[in-house]
């Protein structure tokens, strides 16, 4: 029963996450950008614009210029999250690639960094009056959810080690449509349930910034409006009607 519940939960969460993000990306891609609006100085070529977006994604370049504290905690959180996720690949891959083995200890350090960075970001949200002013309940909940996932993960690691062989069998079973029993440890079950919740709310929340940054016209457009004529489909129709 427990295994079946979690299996269905993860299928649903994964479906919502993937379909939700794809639907959102398709919607962004299909919505025309009628005017050239890169924030200048901007690269004049498509390649240059791609590099600019890559810099925002990997290094948070604009945020670095903007606010060193938010950059530090925000970047630390995201890199730590990436490492932690990569560490977890061992539950989904068999055999485990050597590089995944190699990063295992870094994934643990990263979990501490992740929790620390989230606490720091939360403290800013609570202590700085202008950031408190703009914060919504969902902003606090997102932090709480991520922090709870990180802390339960750490607690499993240090206080209530679970049968990780069985956990791996469960997830491989999910992927192979051959369900295997999930250990009934409370911390593990909490950790996994919270992850499923995060996956499911992702496409409906501000976590969408992960997709949005790729589609931001002020960052991803090359600065070439004098050299090329860009006309959105609806604007071209307007022009045809006019004549």
């Amino acid at each position, binding site marked *: 029963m427990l295994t079946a519940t979690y299996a269905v939960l993860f299928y649903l969460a994964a479906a919502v996450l993937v379909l939700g993000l794809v639907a*959102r990306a398709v*919607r*962004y891609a299909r*919505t*025309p*950008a*009628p*005017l*050239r*609006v890169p*924030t*200048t*100085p*901007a*690269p*004049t070529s498509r390649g*240059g614009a791609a590099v600019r977006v890559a810099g*925002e994604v990997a290094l*948070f370049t*604009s*945020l670095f*210029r*903007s*606010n060193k504290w*938010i950059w530090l905690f925000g970047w630390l959180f995201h890199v730590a999250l990436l490492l932690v996720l990569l560490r977890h690949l061992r539950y989904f891959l068999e055999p485990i690639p050597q590089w995944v083995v190699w990063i295992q200890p870094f994934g643990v350090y990263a979990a501490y960094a992740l929790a620390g960075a989230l606490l720091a970001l939360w403290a800013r*949200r609570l202590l*700085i*009056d*202008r*950031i408190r*002013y*703009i*914060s*919504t*309940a*969902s*902003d606090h*909940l997102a932090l709480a959810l991520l922090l709870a996932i990180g802390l339960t993960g750490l607690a499993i690691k240090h206080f209530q080690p679970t049968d990780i062989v069985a956990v791996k069998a469960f997830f491989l079973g999910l992927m192979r449509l051959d369900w295997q029993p999930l250990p009934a440890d409370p911390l593990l079950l909490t950790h996994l349930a919270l992850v499923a919740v995060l996956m499911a709310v992702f496409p*409906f*929340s*501000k976590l*969408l*910034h992960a997709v*949005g*940054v790729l*589609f*931001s*016209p*002020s*960052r991803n457009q090359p600065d070439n*409006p*004098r*050299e*090329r*004529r*860009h*006309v*959105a489909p609806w*604007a071209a129709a*307007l022009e045809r009607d006019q004549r």
Partner: protein
Amino acid sequence: MSQDAFDAPPLSQRPEGLEVPSARPGRSAESRSHRAGAEHQEALGFPSDIPDDWQDRALARMEELLARNRSLRVYLDACVHCGACADKCHFYLGTGDPRNMPVGRQDLMRDVYRRHFTPAGRSFPALVRGRELTWDVLEEWFTYFHQCTQCRRCSVFCPYGIDTAEISMAAREILDATGLGQKYTNEIIGKVHKVGNNLGLPKPALEDTVEGLEEDLKDETGHDIRIPVDEVGADVLLITPSADFFAEPHVDGLMGYAKVFHQAGLSWTLSSYASEAANFAMFMGSYEHMKRIAERIRKAALDLEVKRIVVGECGHAWRVAYSFWNTLAGIGQGADADDEYARALQDQLDRRYPVPQHICEMTRDLVERGAIELDPEANAHHGGVTFHDSCNVARASRMGGYAGGQLEIPRQLLRASVPHFHEMADGTTGDATFCCGGGGGLLTDEVMELRVRGAYPRASALGEVMERQGVQKMAAICAICKTQFAKVLPYYGIPRETVISLHELVGNAVRLDRTEA
């Protein structure tokens, strides 16, 4: 004009790191633009009064805009409330009203978007602060979306590039559709559609003004420097903000352009039909009205059979010209072979020059080619000079063939035209420049307190170089900046004459020794 209803904040001694005020909700709520009356609404095809179904209309318009404008949709979704933008807006730094933080302003629309257009907001409004679009909310929109100069400083610093200008433009479109237009902007757009410029200056008046200027030029220089109007077959069509025809210090800039054209021996003309570079339709985000205004320039260029189009000193105008004219009216290059509409003009124009070309680009090229010579000593009497990067030039356009030319080319001209050039504090120039506080449709007296407070970051940086470097002039390349600074700098104890047109300095420096043909 009463100057006593409020005090300007004292200038900061640390303009590179201004103190961030703590949030004081409602601090700036009283600075409200006048509502457009019936005639100014009707002239633009907007409802003249508030229709009974205003909420349906507003939401319908919002839905349309979300479908036709990617930036709006992405920007409403992407914000994570990180707060990086919170201390970047000149209006927040000057007023402390949290609705003047970029995110605070955006959230006025974002909260409504969530409530009406997202599953999370429809189901759990309290969780994501979804807000029903009530009349009070719409009134708040009117107040605060008309406290944004659309300067894009927030966009530079946002990790996702979220541009409040895009959101305030959309908000103003929605307000227009519900009958809540802004008087200043809508009245002016009506004049452009009817007469061809923001001032409503008809051809005879324009010719008269220009004749007077030619006489002034003759008196000043002894040369017959012309300012031609409607000369068919001229090589260059100059499109300049109409403020250049009469306002101070703008008009000295126009005379500067004339000296450059004269000395370089270029044949040029103004157009009485398209006698306005500024395109205020951008302020309210209306693609249709922007297009209509831009098409006057296309028609003038075709009718006058010119080979080049040059744009005078104006910030938002240069953004529309550089970034949008090609899209809106085919004024540019690179249109497809089967794009007859754009080709009609593009095939007529000289491909060797960028279309449109900024007056600074043109003058710089003339200097580089040796067609004109500049003598900085001619401006020695001005003492030190600094340069104010206009927001829309710096962050929404380009000059020259490379990224960042819009920051360098005006400086190259200034350095060649004045003996002592000084930069203002880091973080207040280049693409981090602070807006003058009067752009985006706010150059209207009823929001004077807001304008003064919005100029606080720039005034602080200017005050510092005046005190420390002996700077006496701040050159600008935008009609709005010039008008705004001339009006608000005195509130900070800085003389209005401090602001000067870049091309006035260039004009002083040009050696006028061309042998008359």
